[in-house]
């Protein structure tokens, strides 16, 4: 009995090990942001159907790890929700790697509140004051007499960075801010808390939370694409040099330009870069 198990284990390992030599498949490794991840997932689904011989793996460990993976040669495409930082560029160039950005979609960061909140509109200054702790009650901005519960994404996420840079003007947030580590969680927190204010990607908007007008602009596809909405950011795919034309990497990185790619980007809740 024991022998059978041992034999079975050895066989399993052998099969796995030899599999590497037997099947010479084309691989495409993608590492990076959790925000861009869903787009890459959906692209990969269509690519898998189109090219059965292609082996795509996607790992969502964060933009910083995406950049590091591109530098280490651990991936072919780094998906990032922010542009590469100076330091990353310098390190890359010193390693002989030349990161080329491809903007695959636009994302808007919407300020949201509980749907029962009568407030419809806030200015950037008001939002900043709320997050800095100067405004603590909804009464102060024309709402009901209710304490404001401030929800923020964790300080390491790209969403936070966009919000912090474009809206907070790099001011420090008040200590009582509650940090959540994903868009769905931020959505869930605002949905279940009457006095909550938070910010989420435009793809996560639904009837359970209410998006506020910011400086008089409602976040929507049009206002984000045109840049009128102040909290918009591009989403990137980085490759080492411009990929060889016709290669799988090239096909993957330029898929967003096709009609199908646009459709997917839109279905995933982001704003396509071009308007077909």
């Amino acid at each position: 009995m024991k022998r059978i198990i041992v034999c079975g284990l050895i066989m399993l390992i052998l099969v796995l090990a030899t599999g590497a030599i037997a099947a010479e498949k084309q691989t495409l490794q993608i590492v990076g942001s959790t925000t861009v991840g869903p787009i890459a997932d959906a692209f990969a689904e269509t690519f898998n159907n189109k090219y059965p011989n292609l082996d795509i793996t996607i790992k969502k460990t964060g933009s910083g790890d995406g950049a590091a993976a591109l530098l280490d040669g651990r991936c072919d495409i780094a998906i990032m929700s922010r542009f590469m930082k100076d330091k990353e560029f310098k390190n890359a160039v010193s390693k002989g790697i030349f990161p080329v950005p491809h903007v695959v979609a636009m994302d808007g960061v919407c300020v949201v509140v509980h749907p029962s909140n009568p407030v419809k509109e806030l200015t950037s200054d008001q939002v900043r004051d709320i997050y800095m702790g100067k405004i603590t009650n909804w009464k102060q901005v024309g709402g009901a007499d209710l304490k404001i519960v401030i929800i923020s994404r964790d300080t390491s996420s790209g969403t936070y960075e966009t919000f912090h840079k474009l809206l907070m003007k790099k001011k420090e947030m008040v200590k009582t801010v509650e940090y959540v580590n994903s868009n769905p969680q931020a959505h869930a927190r605002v949905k279940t808390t009457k006095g909550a204010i938070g910010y989420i990607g435009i793809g996560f908007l639904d009837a359970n939370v209410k998006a506020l007008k910011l400086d008089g602009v409602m976040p929507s596809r049009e206002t984000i694409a045109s840049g009128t909405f102040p909290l918009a950011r591009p989403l990137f795919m980085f490759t080492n040099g411009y990929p060889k034309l016709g290669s799988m990497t090239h096909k993957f990185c330029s898929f967003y330009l096709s009609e199908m790619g646009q459709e997917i980007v839109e279905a995933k809740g982001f704003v396509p870069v071009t308007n077909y």
Partner: protein
Amino acid sequence: MKYNTRHILNKIFTVVTAASVALMIVILIAVLGPMIWRGSSAVFFKSTVEFRKMQLDLHRRGDKTEIDDEISQSEVYRDFIYHKIDAFKKGINTDYYTDRVKKIYRQFSKELQYNGIKGDELSRRRKFARGIRRDMEKAFRSLNKAEILQIIDNINKFKGDERIANTKAVEFFALADEYRKTIKNFDLSKRQQYAQALEEVESLVKQLLGPRSNEPLPAMIMDRYGATRLDLANELLGKIIWKRQWVQQSSGKPMIEEKICRSTQFAGTELEDLFPYIEENFDKITIPRFTFYWQYFIDDSTSGHYFGGVGPEILGTLILTVLAMVFVFPLGVISAAYLVECASENMVLRIIRMCINTLAGVPSIVFGLFGLAFFVLVFIPFFGGPSKPCILAASLTLAVLTLPVMIRASEEAIRSVPKTYKEASLGLGASQFRTFVKVTLPAALPGILTGVILSLSRVAGETAPILFTGACAFGSVPKSLFSQTRTLSYGSYDIAVGDKIGMLVPHNQYGMVVTLVLLIICLNAIAIFFRAKIFRRLKGH
């Protein structure tokens, strides 16, 4: 102290200890109960006809004629709904016309290029057509009937213009006429009133029924089918019939949620009786049927785990766990044997013991970073492997992670083997090594297997150590030790944090966690079975 008080204290103490154990059982039920209850709906649920259609399309499951029959049955009711909506939609939603105009224009410019028209001529003719397109789009947007009619008349003046004669662009005029006919008897003020509400209803109906058969297939598989599960369908039905709205009662107070019946919202229009119709014929539209979707455990999933099961995840978890066990078992047992049998209480032993304890306390995320820095970037390349995250690196990292658990349990087991066994063997003249392999180890095996159980569950459930070393969120079934794999632990984490889809398919989210728990319990059961068997054999001798 009085005898009585002592006794009462004693009783109370007994009750308190029993209560603490009861509390644990309650905790176990509280943790597992809701999860299993919700997770089981990933496998046992009432499916709609859309689900069977999807299974047929994607996996060739089910009887084709039967399913086609069901589809055609439900099609009758669907057609009625579509017909109603289309009739009402004309004139209200002009997206259809806008799309048509766009398409005609695009075909026109392609046609010109195809015919070899270049340079100024091309841009001149395109500019002209673009002008018509803009005018028509303006007409579609406008709410003023007189203005629309004037625009259409203006356009019709260009009929037969040489710049667009004999091209696709002549379809512009047919379209303009069609539009004129549509709005002839139409009250344009309705457009403002109903446009948004109609759009809402349409998108809900699309979510419920899926795209129409004459529409082009959407790019993503998740959009190709309507609600596949009755619970989701019911939820959508509620949304279709009742519109939720937040209303301000008095200023300075929170708004209150109100439900409005949609048939009152659309009162006096063609859509009024659509909602009662959907409600009445709901069963005939969806054709619910109880389904035991056991293929959940072998199916692959579509992107974001929207449809499908957890097959590759289970396989990946098993491979990682078994491999980690293969690495850690000999290492753990030998270490334990050394600690018990060979080492005397000295500095070396104390250092080793301290290191093992420290290893047990190292945060799992540090293991992940260590695995990336050591196994992925140094260790495997040193032996000629690729310097990329892979199953091998992940399982090695997991083996290191679980080493202390393994050592401690084996040590305990080996220590608990009665001295008399060993002494009898040594007394018969067997060497120390032989005594250990033939006598101590078999006697300690049940205890060692307990260690295996503990490490198994630790290994299978960890996310952080494999995050950077060998797990991926999307990928095919692993082909070799040097590819990455999906796992249940990372998969459930990924659904929770990544995509907005995760919010739409809670059953899959719970299903994955429950699968993981069940898998671990199964692995445990196997180990427990072997433990009992060995134990019995030992007793028998």
